[in-house]
């Protein structure tokens, strides 16, 4: 009886300590696993569905309306200065550094740069089309592009059916054959994703000398494309509204795609007046797309100004 009492006393005294130590070890291990697997944490189908239910187009269009409202000259330095400080805008590079020059926030957002502040690398076959941050790059293997490490999306989902090959009277039996056609034995497909932060210069230029044959406008969703969402939402670039120009450069196939987002949902291409982005889609299929064949002669020279992203 004494032994039983002693054993019970021991358990009552030390069991809470043991439980606390065990809990602390579990908590630490769980925390370490979370840190290790952070890059692989992606949205489930349910989470993606919930996210897609948010009225992002409505928010985007309201934001666009607000951004294009006239701002009285007296408050421009305050409002645009606040924006510039928050998003670290380099006003020294702007063509018009005086904040009073811009009538609206949208105009300030798409401010042009002074001549000579950007140098086009004459020797490089491929240059950056925009100011920003490299999100991801690499080879596209087996018709797949890596969005983030371990998460891929299909080229055919991103570009849509390769009808431009029929347009240019080339062989096109199906998508796979078309992609094989685009890639001969000594070449492969590469991809590069550039993210433009809110304070960056939001105009974009031609990344190479290329001949656009075809334009496709996908009226998709307007999810955020911030690096955090791009890491979280699989196939983000296949879901969002985007405008892609497909053509050829000296090494074969070349495509340039401007992907819209919630705050910056409109893509404007200066040579393409017919292009209308971030419109009400109503009850139409949000994944539908509109094509336009481009006349020969609209050649993009490396560094040429192509267009800009607009607010809303």
């Amino acid at each position, binding site marked *: 009886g004494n032994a039983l009492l002693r054993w019970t006393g021991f358990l009552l005294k030390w069991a809470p300590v043991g439980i606390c130590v065990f809990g602390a070890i579990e908590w630490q291990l769980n925390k370490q696993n979370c840190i290790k697997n952070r890059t692989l944490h992606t949205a489930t189908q349910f989470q993606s569905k919930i996210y897609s239910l948010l009225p992002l187009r409505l928010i985007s269009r309201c934001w666009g309306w607000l951004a294009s409202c006239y701002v009285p000259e007296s408050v421009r330095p305050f409002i645009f200065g606040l924006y510039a400080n928050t998003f670290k805008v380099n006003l020294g590079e702007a063509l018009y550094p005086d904040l009073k020059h811009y009538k609206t926030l949208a105009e300030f957002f798409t401010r042009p740069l002074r001549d000579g502040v950007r140098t086009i690398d004459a020797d490089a076959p491929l*240059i*950056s*089309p925009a100011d920003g941050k*490299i999100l991801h790059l690499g080879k596209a293997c087996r018709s797949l*592009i890596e969005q983030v490490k371990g998460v891929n999306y299909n080229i055919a989902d991103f570009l849509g059916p390769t009808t431009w090959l029929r347009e240019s009277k080339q062989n096109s039996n199906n998508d796979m054959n078309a992609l094989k056609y685009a890639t001969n034995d000594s070449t492969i497909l590469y991809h590069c994703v*550039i993210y433009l932060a809110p304070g960056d210069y939001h105009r974009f230029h031609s990344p190479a000398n290329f001949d656009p044959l075809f334009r496709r406008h996908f009226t998709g969703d307007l999810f955020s494309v911030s690096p955090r969402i791009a890491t979280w939402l699989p196939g983000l670039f296949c879901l969002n509204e985007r405008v892609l120009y497909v053509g050829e450069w000296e090494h074969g196939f070349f495509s340039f795609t401007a992907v819209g987002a919630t705050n910056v949902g409109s893509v404007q291409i200066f040579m393409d007046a017919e292009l209308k982005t971030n419109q009400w889609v109503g009850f139409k299929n949000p994944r539908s797309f509109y094509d336009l064949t481009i006349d020969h002669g609209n050649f993009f020279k490396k560094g040429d100004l192509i267009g800009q992203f607009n607010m809303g």
Partner: protein
Amino acid sequence: STIVLLFEAPVGFEFKVKPGQKIKVGQCLGHI
């Protein structure tokens, strides 16, 4: 907003930039 480039290039093409790197218009992205 984001720009995605997808292009065909010789097998020896090498990117001169890395993920996470900040870049400016006109800066070299890669060499063959």
